[in-house]
């Protein structure tokens, strides 16, 4: 450990320290409203460190800085996810203010756990060793489990225990896969795994070896749990419904982004030699996730549950990009699949957060998560209803929204990788999803309200709503700049 190692780790360290500061302030201060402000303003420290690291990268010949016994890498890919996670945390904290002010105790722990989990996500995007990957994964998950069970009522503890048991089981499976990979290659370093696989593969067996076949499938199962892909999605609807709504929003975007970050890094760098085999696996999972998620969402009456199934379907759309691998793509367009994933993750983050923030504001007043309770919101809360409708249009993928551009990049990457069948499945699924997404808009504008009382929103959540709605519009009209950054970020995956 040198000072330079600490500097490489400084965004994560400062974020985790911020979490501890918030918890300590909670014990000292009487006015709890300060806690949210400290959490958001404190994010400037990891932000400053990340910007400084980004600046230092230009001086490095191979565009990366490796530290802490080769387990941590700072490159544009990991910094991209650091910025994304910090943005998500800031927005979710802003939208939680009203929700948290009604908690009788542990307000500091609420923000603190959220920040700890965020530091795990930032670490996850930056790990280059299977051991540190596992540690970062659990650092991400365990605070989220505690947050899911935070309300300590029947539903919340049920969500927590389901999340914990299934995530522990999936990490055990993931670990067995990592162990087989370690046994096969004799190393846990992704770059070395890549180098040693090249020499020792048998072309007649799928995945080049039976041990690796089992190992890769178990790793896909473990990561598939994190990103909520079918058939590892059993926990999603129950946890989303039972957890506090801001945590559901956080879980649906941040945890998914971190999951895709580590999938891209492990598979593109570590298992690059057998990319055709795992790409086929991801293509199948993608088709199944889209279809199952959308079909089951149709029957849902609770809006959080509906968005849970919608998040499963979007994991399917994102996996289209993972499956669009370089080996089949003409040179010069090799980065289209992964950079599309990065763009889609940002687009999905602003879209889903906008939808959830509007839902939080509305259900704070009505006290219900049922779709029927959104009746007449077009009149009772015109501002919230228009933003929720706009977010739903973006989830559906209609221009001029971020969701449309995301799907466009994804499908064009798939077309160039000879995955036309997957594009057909995706387009059919977009059509299916219109049914249940538009149902919410219909209820808000065409059904008479239950009461006439207007719904007002506090300043902080209102600001979060404006930012996310602007994000949807901006990415839908000017996708170019973000796409350029995403392409630069994924360049490290192709070497």
């Amino acid at each position, binding site marked *: 450990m040198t000072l330079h190692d600490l500097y490489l780790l400084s965004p994560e360290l400062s974020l985790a320290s911020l979490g501890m500061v918030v918890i300590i302030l909670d014990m000292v201060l009487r006015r709890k409203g300060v806690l949210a402000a400290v959490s958001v303003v404190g994010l400037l420290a990891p932000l400053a460190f990340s910007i400084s690291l980004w600046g230092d990268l230009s001086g490095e010949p191979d565009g990366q800085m490796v530290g802490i016994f080769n387990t941590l890498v700072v490159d544009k890919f990991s910094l991209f996810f650091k910025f994304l996670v910090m943005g998500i945390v800031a927005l979710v904290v802003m939208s939680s203010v009203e929700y948290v002010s009604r908690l009788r105790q542990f307000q500091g722990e609420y923000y603190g756990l959220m920040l700890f989990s965020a530091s795990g996500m930032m670490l996850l995007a930056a790990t280059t060793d299977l051991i540190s990957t596992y540690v970062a994964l659990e650092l991400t998950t365990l605070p989220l489990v505690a947050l899911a069970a935070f309300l300590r009522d029947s539903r919340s503890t049920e969500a927590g225990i389901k999340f914990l048991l299934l995530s522990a089981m999936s990490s*055990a499976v993931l670990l067995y896969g990592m162990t087989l990979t370690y046994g096969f290659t004799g190393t846990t370093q992704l770059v070395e795994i890549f180098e040693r696989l090249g020499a020792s593969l048998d072309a007649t067996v799928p995945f080049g070896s039976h041990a690796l076949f089992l190992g890769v499938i178990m790793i896909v199962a473990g990561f598939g749990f994190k990103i909520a892909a079918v058939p590892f999605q059993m926990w999603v609807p129950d946890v989303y419904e039972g957890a506090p709504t801001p945590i559901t929003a956080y879980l649906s975007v941040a945890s998914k982004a971190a999951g895709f970050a580590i999938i891209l890094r492990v598979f593109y760098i570590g298992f690059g030699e057998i990319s055709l085999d795992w790409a086929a696996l991801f293509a199948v999972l993608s088709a199944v996730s889209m279809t199952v998620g959308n079909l089951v969402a149709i029957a849902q009456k609770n809006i959080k549950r509906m968005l849970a199934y919608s998040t499963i379907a979007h994991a399917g759309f994102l996996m289209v990009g993972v499956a669009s691998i370089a080996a089949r793509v003409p040179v010069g367009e090799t980065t289209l699949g992964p950079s599309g994933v990065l763009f889609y993750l940002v687009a999905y983050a602003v879209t889903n957060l906008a939808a959830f923030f509007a839902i939080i504001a509305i259900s704070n007043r009505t006290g219900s998560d049922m779709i029927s309770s959104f009746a007449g919101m077009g009149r009772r809360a015109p501002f919230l209803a228009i933003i929720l409708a706009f977010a739903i249009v973006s989830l559906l993928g209609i221009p001029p929204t971020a969701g449309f551009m995301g799907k466009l990049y994804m499908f064009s990457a798939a077309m160039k990788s000879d995955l036309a069948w997957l594009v057909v499945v995706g387009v059919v699924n977009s059509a299916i999803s219109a049914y249940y997404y538009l149902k919410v808009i219909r209820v808000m504008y065409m059904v008479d309200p239950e009461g006439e009382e207007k719904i007002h929103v506090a300043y902080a959540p209102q600001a979060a709503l404006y930012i996310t709605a602007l994000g949807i519009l901006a990415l839908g009209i000017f996708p170019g700049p973000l796409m350029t950054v995403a392409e630069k970020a994924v360049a490290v995956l192709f070497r």
Partner: protein
Amino acid sequence: MNLENFLIFSGIIFSIGLYGALSKKNVITVLMSIELMFNGVNIALIAFSRYVVPQRIAADPVAAEAEVARALAEGTALGETVLSTLLTGQVFAIFIITIAAAEVALGLGIVIAMYRNRETVDVTQANLMRG
């Protein structure tokens, strides 16, 4: 003893744990079964660490030995030497044990909260949300 024996043993332990985690009703038993799965992984890791890595080093034992000796003499960080690759599997196992302990602590906390709410720790009773 062969590597195969350890791997079969670890596979059996892992499978017993997986079966228990999927079939038992009591949350505490499920947590114990998951612990068994982690221990199955640990056995495989330590067996690999003992059998697989030395073979790799056996390809050029002189160079490996020289490197270890140099590292010990100069006090170089272990991260850059053969010695650290020898220990990778065992280090991994220690991390798993530590994190599994944290996981169980959190699990038991939630189990207590769950018991206070509904006076049972039966997972089949955890069915408030459906659909």
